[in-house]
Structure formats: C-alpha cells, structure tokens
C-alpha cells in the first residue's frame, strides 16, 4: 500500500487542537491543584502527626476508642438523612407542579425557589433563629393568637436544625429533579394512559422511574452537602446537635488540636468519597433503567 499524502500534517493539526483544549482547562486544573489537592494532602499529613510532631496514629485511635466520636458520626448521618428525606417530601410535589405548568410560569416560580440561594447563608440561619427562638416571632404570634400556652422549643435542638438545613438544601434537590422531570416526554404518559393506566398507576409505573435519575442526583447532593454542613446546624442546634463539622471547629478553635481536626476531616472525606462511589453505581444503573433513550 502506498503511503497516504499529508498524514504528518493532519496528525500535527489534530495534536495542536488537543493541546489547545488542554490549554483552556489548564488554569482551572492548576487552581484546583493549589486550593484543593495540596491542602487536602496537607490535611492527611497533619492527621498522622502527634502533638509533638512525630508520626503517630493516635488521632485515629482515639476516634476508634471513644464512643463520643461514634455518636457524633451517627448524629451527622441522622441529620443528613432526615434533611434529605424532608427535602424529597417537600421537593417532589413542588417539582412535579413546576414541570406541569407552562415553561414561562415555571421559570418565574423557579426564581422564588432559588432566591434563598442568593441570600447569605449566615443571614438565613440567623433569620431562622429570630423566628424560632423562645421569644421569637413564631412563639410570640402563637401565644398571642392563643394557639399554644408555653413557648415551643423550636430551636437549639434537632427540630430547629432540620428546619434550617431543609430550607438551605431544598434548592439543591429541586434543580436536578425539576430538570429531570421536564425532560420526560409527555407522550410516555399519554401512552400509559392510552394503554389503560389511570393517573396513579401512570405516575408510579412510568413517571416515577423516569424521574429517578434526577431524584437520586438531587438526594445525593443534599446528603453529601449535609455531612459537612457547619454554620446552620451549629447555630440552630445550639450545641445540642453535635455534627462532625462542629467537632472539627471545636478542635481547632478551642483545643488548637490540628491533628485531631485533620483526622476527623480525613475520615469525613473518605466516607463521602465511598458514598459517592456507591451512589455512582446506583445512578448509572438508574440511568440505564430510567434514561431518556430514544
């Protein structure tokens, strides 16, 4: 076979194209390297240093032995799980409604859903404090209107924490779930109805499986964000709801124990990564089962 003309030039132009693309992404990669990879690496390093600076696994050992650490992790998972569940309970019907109304109206409503995201987290958290505390707005109105006699304990406990976290996390569930629902071809539902499925069965057998990818994505984002959530649980939990994030903050601010804090951070990171891998399997399976393949 005779050699083809211009192969070297064609290959070179392909290479330049590829290098161009890499060049575009290089600054971002560098940024991530400096602000994420290096600090996290440093974190790992700190976590295996004892107070005197020698190599030691004492921080991890303490976590394993002290029951309070187990309780902290359990509380963290509990709050994350409950927040996710409540977000789904509130968010699913909301997203369904948004996906049924005309696009223009939905976009307007979406602004209302996203508005909290554009407000400072601290402002939102303290606003809840003002509303929920013993002599806050809600209790004052409730007592004045005669709805209850004693002020309700709405904050500095799990209830207050969840109210705050759900409020913050809801948009993160709504966005992927809504876009997943919008993408569902309404002809599938018409076909289901034509074949004999009433509204309930149509929803459960056709709509719900097809919206699953969005639901799993949204739930995952909410859960993982909650694991590391600091500000809102710290303020609204009032020291009674101790999550891993609070523990880390205490170790650094009160005890100046960077080693212990780092160890906690490492464990949290590893757990999160494992969760993402497991869920990644789940989501891929769901995309195969519930994907919008033509």
């Amino acid at each position, binding site marked *: 076979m005779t050699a083809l003309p211009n192969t070297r030039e064609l290959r070179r132009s392909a290479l330049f194209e590829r290098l161009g693309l890499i060049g575009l992404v290089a600054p971002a990669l560098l940024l991530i390297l400096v602000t994420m990879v290096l600090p996290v690496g440093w974190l790992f390093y700190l976590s295996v240093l004892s107070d005197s600076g020698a190599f030691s696994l004492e921080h991890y050992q303490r976590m394993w032995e002290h029951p309070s650490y187990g309780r902290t992790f359990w509380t963290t998972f509990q709050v994350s799980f409950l927040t996710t569940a409540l977000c789904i309970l509130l968010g699913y019907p909301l997203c369904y409604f948004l996906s049924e109304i005309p696009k223009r109206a939905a976009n307007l409503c979406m602004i209302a859903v996203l508005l909290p995201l554009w407000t400072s987290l601290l402002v939102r958290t303290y606003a809840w404090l003002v509303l929920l505390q013993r002599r806050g707005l809600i209790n004052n109105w409730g007592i004045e209107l005669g709805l209850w006699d004693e002020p309700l304990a709405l904050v500095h406990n799990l209830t207050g924490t969840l109210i705050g976290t759900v409020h913050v996390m809801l948009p993160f569930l709504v966005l992927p779930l809504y876009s997943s629902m919008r993408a569902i071809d309404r*002809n599938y539902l018409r076909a289901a*109805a*034509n*074949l*004999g499925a*009433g509204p309930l069965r149509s929803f459960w057998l*056709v709509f719900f499986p097809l919206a699953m990818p969005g639901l799993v994505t949204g739930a995952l984002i909410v859960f993982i964000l909650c694991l590391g959530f600091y500000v809102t649980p710290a303020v609204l939990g009032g020291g009674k709801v101790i999550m891993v994030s609070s523990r880390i903050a205490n170790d650094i601010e009160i005890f100046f124990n960077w080693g212990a804090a780092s160890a906690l951070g490492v464990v949290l990171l590893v757990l999160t990564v494992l969760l993402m891998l497991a869920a990644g399997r789940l989501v891929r399976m769901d995309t195969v089962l519930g994907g919008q*393949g033509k």
Partner: protein
Amino acid sequence: MSAASLPISIAQVTKTYGKTFALDHVDLEIRSGEFLTLLGPSGSGKTTLLTVLAGFTRPDGGSLKFGDTEMITVPPHKRHVGMVFQNYALFPHMSVADNVGFPLKLRGVKPAEIAQRTERALEMVRLGGYGTRGVDQLSGGQRQRVALARAMVFEPRIMLMDEPLSALDKQLREHMQIELRQLHDKLGMTTVYVTHDQREALTMSDRIAVINGGRIMQLDTPRALYERPKNRFVAEFIGESTFLPVRVHGGCVTLGDQTLRTAVPPPADGPQLLMLRPERLRLLGSSEAVDNACNTIEATLVATVYQGDSSLFRMALADGTPLDVRGDSAVALEPGTRLRLAVSIEDTVLLALEPVA
C-alpha cells in the same frame, strides 16, 4: 361474543384555540372494521381529531360514539383503543416484553398468559424472541413494530395510528404500509390512520377523509377521490394536476376555442375550473385517430423534463396557458412541435372555482 370492531360516530366535534378552529363542526361516520385515513397537510386538524378520539384533547363540544356508547367525556385510560404514536413512545425503562405486556398487566391478566400473548403479538409483527431486548437496542423499524404489538396485544376494537411510518426510510415505509394493511385485514378492527402522505393514504385505505382547516373537504374511496375530486384543494393535494379555466355555456364546455365533453354533466353555466391529470393525457401521433370516448386538445411543446421512469412534457395552449403531460420518457420531441393530446371523457373533470366548504 363481541365483534372484533366498533363503528365510530363523530358529530359536530369542534375545538378552538382562541379564534382558530382546529376542528370545525366535524361530522364523520366510520364504519365498523373500516380502514379510514385522515389525510391533510400540517395544521389541518387531522392529528387533533385523532387525539380527540384517543381522549387526550378535550373538544369544545360535539359527540363521539364508539358503537352506541358516548365517549366524549370518558378519560383516555378507559377508552380501550389501541394507539401507535408517531415517535412510538416505547417506555425506555422497560424491556420489549414489558412494554408489550404493559396493557395486559394493567388489566390484571395472569403472568403466564401475559407471557404467552406477548410472544404471540411479537410474532405477529415478526419480532418473535425479541422480548428480552432493551428498547434502545432496536432499530427504528423494529421499534415501530414493537409499538404496533403493544397496541394490538389487548385486542382493541379500534386502532388509532398517528403517522406511524413517517420516521422510516422510503423502502421500509412502503413495506410496512402493506404489512399494516394486512394486519388490519387479519384482525379486523376499525382503524383510523393519520398521514400527510397522499400516496400512503391511497395505498392503504378503504376510505379517505381529506381534511383542511379543521374541516373535511371530501370523504370518499381512494379511486373516487383521485378521479372525481370535488374541489381544488382535494385535486391539488392528491396526485398531480393541471388546472385550466374553461367556460360552460348551455351544457357545453369550452377551453379557449376547443370544445370538450365531460362524463358528468356540468353543474352550472359560467366560468369553471377544468382539472386534468398529467398522466391521463396522451400524446397522439400525427395520424392517430381517437375514439368517441376521448377529447382532443391541441397544444405546443415548450420543454421536456426527463424524470427516469417517465418524462414531464410541458406544453402550452394557443393562448399560452400552460398544460403538463406525463408520458413515456423514451419519447424525444423538439420544442415547438404542435401536438394533439387525448384525454378520456371520464378524466375530464370540472371543479367549482371556489373550494367547497
């Protein structure tokens, strides 16, 4: 023992969107077991009428009966009609077998029977054994057949089809036209078929309802529609046609200075439209005579368009009015040649000047 099909009775069905009539007081009687096609251009209302039959579109008013039962307010999941969608709407999260068995499952049929009937339906569309495949593993033609199997499996007495072949390539489409018609003949259900392809309609239907602007322009058998269109729209939409202005006076039809006879006596005096189909006009040899059943027209050849299996001979009358003739592509003639054309009296058709409402 119930019949395999039901008649459909559509009376005064109207649907407006703002000021536009998507359906304008439509009356249509569809016979039991008939293959009826709704034929029309985009936006004519043919798909709207089909979705009214299926229950997806709520009309403003009118009556819809399947057999003797009024169905106009019945929700779609209680209508028991089979439907094939234009994009098939096969559930992507279910296998082929689950898709086809879906309507049976909803009706509480036992799993063993579901499996049996599913396989039988798949075999009828020549996809036997494809049950375990995923929908995304199928070609367009295969998906179309699965959609058909799913619509048939619960033995509906009425079948609705919304341009089911439009996404297929020409050869497959023509093949499926014949297959669909054969399935219809075998199973016997009343079929309402929507298409914009007039050739498809002519091939498959018992009767065709030509629709435009939400109204039925003509309801007739394919042959009657082709040979005796009642108005210009139908004549133009189906097959090729040339329109020539003529005058009618005392039962005589005059084209320029030539007199023509028609099979059907002209309806009224005054200006009318003459419709001629290019392939029904015959180029006559210089000494060829015609029998009494033909009209002759004199014209001059302007140009020849070679089109493979035939040629389009563009001609002009003495006053310059254009006239097309379709003929043998092996014939070669010089532009400017004066010729006589023969057309059977049966094919000399008059239309009213305005389209009939």
